[in-house]
């Protein structure tokens, strides 16, 4: 009797099964432990993702470096919009980023930065990294739509204070240093429940050893 029910269930028209949902397309983050956790196995394609950090230098760039190295290696452009400090080219090159495929956009105010991000996403830029302080929900929706249209990755990097605010981002990651090690927490992800309380140390991305920082920085989950 029970077996009979189980076989007949999938055919029922009113039944929706999560496993049959369209798989998420994603770009691997390059951090194997993180990829294993995220639905689709990385940064979702054609969507907005958020990285929240307590202060610049917490490891937010280390987190995205493997992605940048892979994209620029495939001759896709990566844009940095309104970075808080000057990017140091030797460090980027050392991490395997192909510099001719990067673009830095310096803006005077947030509206200019948002406009630039939207334009670049429309132009099918591989990934757009946007640093912004206050970003209204409508602007986030626009970024999300621009990322969908250009099928690129929109990464919004902003201070941790925004973690409490609602967000339309498909993926939200919080990063902070705990005991000298960058630690990533998945705050929200589309297509799965956020995983909490997982502590594991991941080796650096396997495809490009140059991206491994020389000393003590390990990406781990808390």
């Amino acid at each position, binding site marked *: 009797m029970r077996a009979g029910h189980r076989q007949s269930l999938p055919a029922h028209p009113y039944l929706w099964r999560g496993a049959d949902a369209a798989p998420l397309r994603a770009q691997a983050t390059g951090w194997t432990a993180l990829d294993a956790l995220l639905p689709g196995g990385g940064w979702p394609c054609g969507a907005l993702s958020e990285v929240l950090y307590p202060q610049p230098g917490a*490891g937010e760039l280390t987190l995205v470096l493997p992605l940048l190295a892979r994209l620029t290696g495939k*001759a896709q452009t990566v844009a940095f919009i309104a970075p808080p400090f000057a990017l140091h*080219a*030797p460090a980027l090159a050392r991490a395997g980023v192909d510099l001719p495929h990067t673009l*830095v956009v310096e803006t005077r105010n947030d509206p200019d930065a948002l406009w630039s991000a939207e334009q670049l996403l429309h132009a099918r830029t591989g990934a757009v990294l946007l640093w912004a302080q206050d970003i209204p929900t409508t602007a986030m929706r626009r970024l999300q739509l621009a990322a969908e249209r250009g099928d690129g990755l929109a990464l919004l990097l902003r201070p941790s204070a925004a973690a409490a605010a609602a967000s339309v981002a498909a993926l939200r990651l919080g990063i902070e240093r705990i005991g000298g090690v960058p630690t990533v927490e998945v705050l929200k992800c589309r297509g799965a429940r956020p995983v909490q309380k997982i502590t594991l140390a991941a080796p650096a991305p396997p495809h490009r050893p140059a991206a491994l920082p020389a000393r003590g920085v390990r990406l781990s989950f808390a």
Partner: protein
Amino acid sequence: MLWLCLHCPHLPAEALGLRDPLDAVTDGRGAQRWLITPGAGIAAGTALGDALARQPLLRAHARKPAAERAALKRLAHALYRYGSPVSAAIEELPEPGRAPRAFAWVEIGRSLRLFGGLDALRDAIRADLTALQQSAQLGIAPTRDGAALLALAGQTAPALSLTALEPRLAELPVWLLAWPKAQIDALNGMGLRRLGDLFALPRAGFARRFGVERLHTLDRLRGRVPDAVQAIVPPPVFRRRFALPEETVHLESLLFPLRRMSYELQGWLRARDTGVRGLVLECEHAHARRTRLGLRFVCAHRDGARLFDALRTRLEREALAAPVRALHLHATELGAVSGGQLALFDGRSDAQLQWAETVERLLARLGEHALWTPAVVEDHRPERATAQRSPLCGTPPGGGPGTGPGATAGAPERPLWLLPHPVALTQAPRVLDAVERIESGWWDGADARRDYHIADAPHARAWVYRDLADGRWYLHGWFA
């Protein structure tokens, strides 16, 4: 030879930039003035007094022959892309009050195959005329005068050979010829109403009665005597000035001349088979003051819409300081167009083009120094190790030394964030590693003698150094 003729009936108004139907252009002799373009439903050729009596709101503008010649020349330059030779003429009719006839010709017999046949060529020319906002009637015939008469009569069907042309011409009325009205009336009085009637007359008698010159005109029409063409060649530099009808501070009223100049530049670039990389737009104000706006493109191109878009974005960003009297466009930097736009079935070049346009739009809005691509400079001083290159079209081959992954494999660890100015620390930080001494630059005045360490800060790893000159500690970057 196969000539395509464009007849521009509204050239006097178009040359003055008039688009309102209440505006009309007048020509005068002595104290009398006549309309030479139709305005407010009143036909050309009406005396100004009569026209004003019927439509008091009519605005009369005096004709400017120099502006008409310049406008026709611009049209001729745009036609240069379709064939050669190109010629143009404005025929003044003997009586005042009759509209002048402006013609531009281009020889298309040899370029028909290139453009894919007569229909495709005509469509391309019509599209160009729309872009230039120029109204014109087309005529195609083996002789220039024949093509002009067909265009005047509004017959767009082409006459491809002299034998096909003659019966077509024979059907046209005599008054289409640019002869004095008295002579036309005399011909009509004799019952000679069509050109065919004139062709049938005995040549000697016709010459004696109306003059040899008239006979020559008829012979040139039918291609029986050679036609001396004064060819027009585009000048080697592009410089255009557009005087606005009145001073303005509004961007909207500048868009019309901007669009027109953009497409003229496109035509000029196509004719010279080159592309533009740098432009200067100057706005002329009162008291000979000028606002100069420079514009640079990522790669040389000749797309009128892209030029217009860039100019408009640039003007939007630049608040106009004073009312503008005239616009001046000058192509300062030319360059060969990359072949990408001719690629067939290749989406990649399309994406590259879109990318270049986006970068240009960003440059136009944010300023020329807001966008850059980092590059590694071989210098030990960290603040000099990053070069800001302008974003280039496509990918430069190689990319310069030090950018490949192999070249930097053994390089020492460097922070991703560098502070624009080192911040002095009040106390010595807790350092994590051995010292790395950087001592360089004694030869260029920016002497640096520093001991670098990686230090532990609460939220991040910091890159600090002790300046050997003053012994103080500084924070120089973050390992983000």
